[in-house]
């Protein structure tokens, strides 16, 4: 389990990093997914761009009701943030379920989003929260809605020359509650399925993971719930597109638990 040979660069700033990115490069942040892929030789980039030295990407702050999380923020930092726990508790609930403590100590928020594992927790939570993903390349800077960012397993709307720099999360409506429920074979293992929910009067954000190749926003369930439907009814709508019978039952149950938790 030794990686195939690659070149290695460790830029100190985003401006230095951007020209290095392209089809044959891989971005190394916490390394919790990339390093195993390299060691198994499933990933064979010519160049590894180590962004761990880019201090400007490591921050969590809120301005004007918007949470901004730098891509290099460690998952453990998000997990322990008082600010996040108070105003964006769905993120605290979701990040706690990412792997084990050791993994969260190294793993980054941007890495989890950019890697786009269909079983990942943060992408589903970000979709439910209506987050936006900020990307930069030498050509441009752009932001894309989380619900449009994930295109397939390990496949996103990020272009090869783009660096994921920030996750932007709007504040949930006044009085909103949140819930996150997931099912995994063992504690800390990849989730089989899960659901994230943010619910307030006349508002609902619901997303499922494990219901398909990407985390999905459950729009029909959101509309029903915002219109006063019961949690069970909304949960059934959320999972209605899942093919496998047992997985559909699982997604329905997890959506119901997440919604009920959000409703308190």
């Amino acid at each position, binding site marked *: 389990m030794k990686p*195939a040979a690659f070149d290695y660069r460790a830029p100190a700033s985003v401006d230095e990093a951007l020209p290095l990115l392209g089809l044959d490069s891989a971005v190394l942040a916490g390394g919790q997914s990339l390093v195993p892929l390299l060691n198994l030789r499933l990933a064979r980039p010519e160049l590894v761009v180590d962004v761990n030295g880019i201090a400007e990407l490591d921050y969590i702050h809120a301005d004007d009701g918007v949470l901004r999380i730098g891509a290099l923020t460690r998952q453990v930092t998000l997990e322990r943030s008082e600010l996040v726990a108070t105003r964006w508790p769905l993120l605290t609930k979701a990040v706690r379920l990412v792997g084990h403590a050791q993994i969260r100590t190294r793993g980054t928020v941007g890495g989890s989003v950019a890697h786009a594992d269909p079983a990942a927790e943060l992408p589903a939570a970000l979709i439910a929260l209506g987050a936006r993903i900020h990307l930069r390349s030498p050509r441009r800077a752009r932001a894309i809605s989380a619900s449009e960012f994930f295109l397939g397993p390990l496949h996103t709307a990020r272009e090869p020359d783009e660096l994921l720099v920030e996750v932007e999360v709007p504040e949930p409506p006044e009085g909103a509650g949140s819930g996150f429920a997931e*099912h995994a*074979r*063992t504690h800390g293992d990849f989730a089989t399925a899960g659901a994230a929910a943010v619910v307030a009067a006349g508002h609902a954000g619901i997303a499922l993971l494990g219901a398909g190749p990407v985390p999905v926003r459950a729009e029909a369930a959101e509309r029903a719930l915002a219109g006063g439907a019961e949690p069970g009814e909304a949960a059934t709508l959320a999972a209605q597109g899942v093919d496998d019978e047992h997985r559909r*039952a699982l997604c*329905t149950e997890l959506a119901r638990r997440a919604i009920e938790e959000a409703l308190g």
Partner: protein
Amino acid sequence: MGALAGRPLRRREDERILRGRTRYLDDIDPPGAAHVAFVRSPFAHARIGAIDVPEEIEGVVAVISAAELEGRAADLPVQGFEGGEVSTEGHPVLARGEVRYAGQPVAAVLAESRAAAEDGAELVEVDYDPLEAVLEARGSEVTMTRWHRVSGDVERAFESAAHVTRARHSLPRLAPVPMEPRGAIASYDEAEDMLTVWVSAQDSHRQLAGLAKVLDRPEESIHVIVPDVGGAFGSKGAPAPETMLVAAAAIATGRTVKWAEDREENFVASYQGRGVEAEVELALDANGTMLAVRARIWADLGGYLMPTTAIPSHTTAMLMCGVYDIRAADVQVEGRRTNKVPTGPYRGAGRPEAAYFLECTVDAAARELGIDPLELRRRNLVREFPYETALGWTYDSGDYARCLELAEELVKPERHDDDARVVGTGFGMYVERAGGMFESADAELLPDGRVLVRSGSSPHGQGHDTTFAQLAADRLGIAMEDVELRFGDSKEVPRGAGTFASRSVAMGGSAVVQAVDVLKEKIAAVSAGRAMSLREVAEAEPGIRASARFESDLVFSSGAYGAVVEIDRATGRLRVLRLAAVDDAGTIVNPLLAEGQVIGGSAQGLGQCLVEEALYDEEGNPTFASFVGYSLLTAAEMPPVETAFVESPSPLNPLGAKGIGEGGAIGTPAAVANAVADALGGVWVDPPFTDAKLWRALREASG
């Protein structure tokens, strides 16, 4: 017993281990060693054509394939069993003409570093012509082992039976997953014609014998050193083809050669456990007395017989009467060739299979007859010892009824059924072969008055250093600190059998006390009634030494396990709420370590129930090459385990000891399976009890 044996002392080796002062195989870094990476088959079954090696690869010392081993290394030997047929075709060190499982070693690349060796391995081109892969034992046309025994009038028992219960079950293949993967280092001294092999193994003896046989060298010309070993669970007992290659390569190239496998290799190429299915019929009279058992067992043995592949399914067959007084039995086992990695002994090694097949059948019988499953068991337990079973083994001692009574008391049976969940209780009993053959030890009085004990039985996590020191110190009436233990170096320790089959205390411990007893007599002869310290005795008569070789028939540990489980109706999720583990391992030397073995074994048994399964896809590719595809339990999934010991001393050794290393792994799956069936109202599902399986079973159960 003296002041130390029988006490729950903490492991004295742990401080060294926890402080990282151990030396595992990969910690040994001989200067100038060539490192090995294997080219392994990507196909489950294929003919091999040309093997194309580039002229020169950077950093690569040599590339070895079967052609280069011609005349240098024979196939691995095969161990048979009594009264059956076992193919003599062993596992080749490197594939010759054909590969029979994905992961089989085809060529070895020696390079200046492991990374260079892996780079080199990618450049070796093997011409494979894929063949159809056989993945089911019952679909295989090649039988590698066969054993059949009929005892008593089985036909008549079934004809006269008031009731016959028929059951069909299977257990999946399991990966052993020791914390430390396998590895070996070899160096060859041509002038002395001495081959030295360091190997992560359960003992030096079987490695030494295997090397001598495969390399056709006298045993005196081989020195095997087993360093600290980070677990094995059976998987480091039989010598590995890779170890043979390392040794042959060291002789051929004159270089020191090192192979320390990675986790992926360990998953795909280490021999696995279980992979057995059975059809069982139990004949009972109107009172629920068991009259006869009939069983047909098929074992999925994989592509080749590794040295000990034949053993576990034979053990399963021999234990098919379990703890019950059944006077007629017709049991047949067939070990079939499939295109998977070979199987071999894995914690339990045939015993969990027997307990699972029989105990599930007993519960089904109880359900069909409307008799309480505990009452049905009580009516049929063996109660007098020694007891010779219909299949030919003699149980030495036991109190099966007491074990069952305690298990019931400790587990607190519970049944419940509502809209959200179902709760059920189940029990599983077992009797297991342990010990047997021989073990050796010697004891020496050192000049400073301490005693050095060299044991043929060596540890890979069991706590020998503590247990054996307790025994030796007790016999000599000295402090444990004054007893030093040494293991694992074939030049130093006496020739023994090794650490497997829950035999260390019963066999190795008995050899230790016998050697120490002789040493004590020799010391007494020197002191001749005078008050002398051991140091004074050592001064008066330097080099007092004694040795012992202890032999015994098999001893039979037993136990009763109980489990209470809950199944979530909405998701099918199984939670084991609590487990009771009652084991009779004869007289216990260290109750703390014994309980540790029970809990560890139970965790492995629960892993098998909840998540573990080494699955192959339809082409025979392993889907378990990493921890993404093969899950292990964490502490979070462990329920409370209530343990208790019943101590029926074995009459077969001076300690009265039996084995405790495997009981948890043997009793747990049967108890959990019966609890699951109880919760499901009699619907039978085989492990692992995944959410999807149980969710579907619940729907079936509620009609």
